[in-house]
């Protein structure tokens, strides 16, 4: 086929982080025989599938890793491959990374996301529930089912809608945290907050949203953003650091305003 590289088989050496559970200290293990004859047409996770099948058949425990949709959108997969979250390819999740990105004889070091806010639960799986809690703290618009106005009553300039969508494309995989030298979650928080802040529907809660989300992110133990830019470079959805700048600005504005007296979070159900 036009432009289609021919399938090749690779023999690889894998150095994989193995850790039984949260409490275990963990260690690297090396797999060589299990990583032979890997087709370049396989995805990275399919390569791990093959290795796991071989491990199981030889009576050993397979490598636990998170994954679900395998089409780059659910955000559940993610491992650090040779020092890069989701591997070397730009704008690509581990499930969509294909083995044609590697050479025969390559040695791959495969590690979990590392951050105190993302404790390892087993092997390459980490607990990212901190992200859910950040959203629960304010990453929403407080609208109850059923009381929405007619959709076209709220015109949204196309530019704003597009920019909001750029932010909303975040899949919550946590690669930004994994890549950040400070293990900061700022790109995630910025994407979520600015997706909503950019829309007229999200404007009324803008101030309380940014304050609450930053409070939560800080409380979870993520580091601080010092504008290294690693997050943006590894983000599989190429979310721009400009959203962090926007978030900073919104945070400053929110901090300068006098808080209103009314109840903060909006009515419970």
């Amino acid at each position, binding site marked *: 086929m036009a432009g289609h590289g021919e399938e090749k088989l690779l023999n690889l050496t894998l*150095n994989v982080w193995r850790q039984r559970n949260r409490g275990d200290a963990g260690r*690297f293990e090396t797999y060589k025989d299990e990583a032979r004859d890997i087709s370049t047409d396989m995805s990275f996770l399919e390569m791990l599938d093959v290795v796991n099948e071989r491990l199981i058949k030889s009576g050993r425990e397979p490598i636990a890793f998170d994954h679900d949709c395998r089409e780059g959108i659910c955000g559940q997969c993610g491992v*650090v491959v*040779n*020092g*890069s979250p989701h591997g070397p390819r730009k704008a690509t999740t581990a499930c969509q990374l294909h083995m044609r990105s590697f050479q025969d004889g390559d040695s791959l*070091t495969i*590690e979990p996301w*590392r*951050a*105190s*806010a993302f404790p390892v639960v087993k092997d390459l799986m980490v*607990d990212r*529930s901190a992200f*859910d*809690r950040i959203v*629960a*703290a304010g990453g929403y618009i407080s609208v109850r089912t059923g009381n929405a106005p007619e959709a076209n009553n709220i015109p949204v300039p196309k530019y704003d809608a597009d920019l909001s969508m750029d932010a909303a494309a975040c899949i919550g995989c946590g690669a930004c945290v994994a*890549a950040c*030298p*400070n*293990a*900061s979650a*700022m790109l995630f928080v910025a994407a979520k907050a600015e997706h909503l802040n950019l829309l007229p529907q999200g404007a009324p809660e803008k101030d309380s949203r940014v*304050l*609450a989300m*930053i*409070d*939560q*992110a*800080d*409380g*979870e*133990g*993520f*580091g*601080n*953003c*010092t*504008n*290294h*830019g*690693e997050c*943006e*470079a*590894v983000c599989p959805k190429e979310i*721009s*650091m*400009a959203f*962090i*700048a*926007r*978030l*900073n*600005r*919104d*945070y*400053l504005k929110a*901090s300068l305003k006098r*808080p209103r007296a009314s109840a903060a979070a909006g009515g419970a159900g």
Partner: protein
Amino acid sequence: MSVVASSPAAGRRPAPRSRLQRFLTSSIGLKLIMAFSGVFLSLFALGHMLGNLQAYQGAEALDAYGALLHKEPALLWGVRLGLLGLVGMHIFAYLALTRRNNTARPKGYRQRKWRESSYASRSMTLTGPLLLAFIVYHILHLTTGTVHPDYEEGAVYHNLVTGLGGVNGLIYIAAMAMLAFHLWHGVWSMMLTLGLPEGRYGSLGRTVATIFTILVTVGFATVPLAVLTGVLHL
């Protein structure tokens, strides 16, 4: 039974505090303090550099400039205290942010590949303290004369030329190289923190940072260089 660890509770959020307290302890608040003090320190550096350039107009001009600065002690001390305050804010933010960053990743990676960060951005925590040490030295050297063997009160040009020869000149030039790293990331980072760049990130902010850094650090470095090469002499 089953109350589950993974069931998110809003528990880890810090307790409500005053607005100021919240600002002073939050990651973005600290960053803003860092950036805000950074803006004024950068502007001070620019002004200081421009002042230094008067050395090229000769001893008279420079000494007169020095005298002008000392004319109103209240103003002078006001500015000095202001600068001290800004440096204090800068250091306070640095300490608070760094302490948190150091605990955010207790276990590091075996292998690491940098894709976008620069040596400048990753060395901020090193260049910062080194610059502080340099500034202390610089004040003891050219402001108070404490460590200057040939210091004469009020003779700015003389102090400069006698103080920046030899190894000292090299130290000053090395410090400016360090300042270049610090400013290059700092100025750009400060703009981002203050929320300035619009649209797609990068180009404008980077360009401003690069021009500013070159201007300030090269401007500064020419003086010791001129002393070392004999362009400036007694």
